[in-house]
């Protein structure tokens, strides 16, 4: 799992850039390394946009296939995770558009978690369900990105093309909503 704290930000960025550089010269093993480091962030971000595990899985696959084919065009600017997630964002939005054209079932009915109930603790699952059910799309994207990608608010603002203050206020609102929801036990 990709866990970023201030202790290893610089190290992780360097490692991710090295993987992308290796992918650019055709190293498949580096795809595996990059996948292991970033899969939670990519899947979480896709899930936050699509609210659907099946679509999020497809976007997860497509993201790394796209990285494989376009790694040569990556300029190492110290933002490898933002680059990866930008690819995820475009693919997820494109998937969302396709789905809106073809699907006529409600968004909520698409949300079916894949893991067995005992694989995730009840409390962890409650938080994820609350995030999916009670937050707006933007709030969900921001809090999930902050929780799993290690991106700073400034970087999240750039990724989502939002003013920093909007990201900060939505982030703060999302956390309060989740706290209240979990406190009141409204999650079903």
């Amino acid at each position, binding site marked *: *799992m990709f*866990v970023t704290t*201030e*202790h290893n*930000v*610089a190290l992780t960025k360097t490692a991710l850039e090295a993987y992308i550089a*290796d992918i*650019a*010269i*055709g*190293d*498949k093993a580096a*795809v*595996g390394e990059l*996948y292991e480091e970033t*899969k*939670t962030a990519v*899947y*979480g971000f896709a*899930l936050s946009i699509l609210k659907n*595990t099946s679509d999020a*899985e497809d976007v*997860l*696959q497509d993201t*790394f*296939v796209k990285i*494989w*084919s376009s790694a*040569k065009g990556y300029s190492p600017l110290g933002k490898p995770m933002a680059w990866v997630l930008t690819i995820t964002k475009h693919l997820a939005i494109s998937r969302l558009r396709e789905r809106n054209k073809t699907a006529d079932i409600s968004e909520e009915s698409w949300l079916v*978690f*894949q*893991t067995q109930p005992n*694989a*995730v*603790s009840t*409390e*962890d*699952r409650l*938080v*994820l369900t609350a995030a999916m059910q009670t937050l707006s799309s933007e709030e969900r994207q921001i*809090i*999930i990105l902050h*929780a*799993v990608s290690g991106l*700073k*608010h*400034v970087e999240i603002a750039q990724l989502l093309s939002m*003013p*920093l*203050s*909007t990201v*900060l*206020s939505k*982030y*703060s609102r999302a*956390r309060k909503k*989740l*706290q209240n929801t*979990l*406190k009141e036990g409204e999650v079903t």
Partner: protein
Amino acid sequence: MNAANIETKLANAISKEVPDVLDDILSKCNKQSGNIFEINEFNNKAKSNKWIKSFYATAAVLALLVGGYFLIWQYQMVHTVDSVITLDVNPSVELKVNKAEIVLSATGLSEDGASVLEEIQQDGEKLTGKELDEAVNELVCSMVEKGYLSELNNSILISVDNSDNEKSIEIKMRLLISVGNTLSERGIDGAILGQINTANEKISELAEKYGISKGKSSLIESIIAKTPQYSFDDLAHLDINDLSLLAEKWLDEMENISMVGTPSSKGYISSESAIDSAFAHSNIEISDNAEIVASLELADGKLIYDVSVITDDIKCDYYIDGKTGTILDWVSNTIDSGSMGNDQGLSTGNSDNVETDLPEEPTEDIVDAIIDIITDITNKVG
């Protein structure tokens, strides 16, 4: 469950949900046109001789040194204060952040500042460990909620100190925009002042003496440089909004200070209202050639309007409380039409500070001294 726990649980739940699709991905990764970079392994078996042993020993020592250096560097990056950011409204709060802009400490520099931090903590939040932008946003939101920042009192001063000038400017500009937007989202048309690298010995001493932040101390020094009639003591007790109103007209000339927005004068009566108050009190009839000037000035630690009215035959000066509109003092002088028009005639007013041109009456001591001198001279002549 606190906020930090929520994110950890969210991350845990998502990480467990991630499907394993690596094989599918790799099967779709067709051969690229570029060459696969292969690391040629050193297949020859190492010969166990002394030279190789010493080579490995040296390499191990080097690795330890590099590792040690890296650990020290990492420790410094995480724990060393890189920038100090001060927010002043009336509550003053200082944030110290490391190179990664993570808050290492948050300190209230005034009673209200400490109270804001305490209330944030009571809400289950902690500023230390947060990103700078998030912590500043939290503080600004809290100051709005507690009424320290409002439409009437819309000014906030952000002071950034970092040894790297470019980084100071980058943080300052980012926070100016971000705080402006945060206030705007809460319906406040804010005035955000930003300044960089404010600390020097004199400013630090003054800040300590008056119990204010170095940032505010630096702003006051900048205002005094433009308005020497004010003393540090006059300005130290004003809040940032009042200081901003005083500084506004010289901002273009203050190199170190930038401002986004306009400081609110809504807490004050308008200059028109001040003029109306003056006329209502004096019963002056306004002729076409009357000269009327109203300016916001500082007197006795508060902002007042100095309304000056000059007609053909009278000159009045009114000092009006900027907040309440109460007339604090007034002086009225008739203008002698026989002179060139500027000589003062009769004076009336309600203040003790009306000055007249009459010589002062000599005191008894002076009279006695003069009598002694005359007696002495008379005796000598006699």
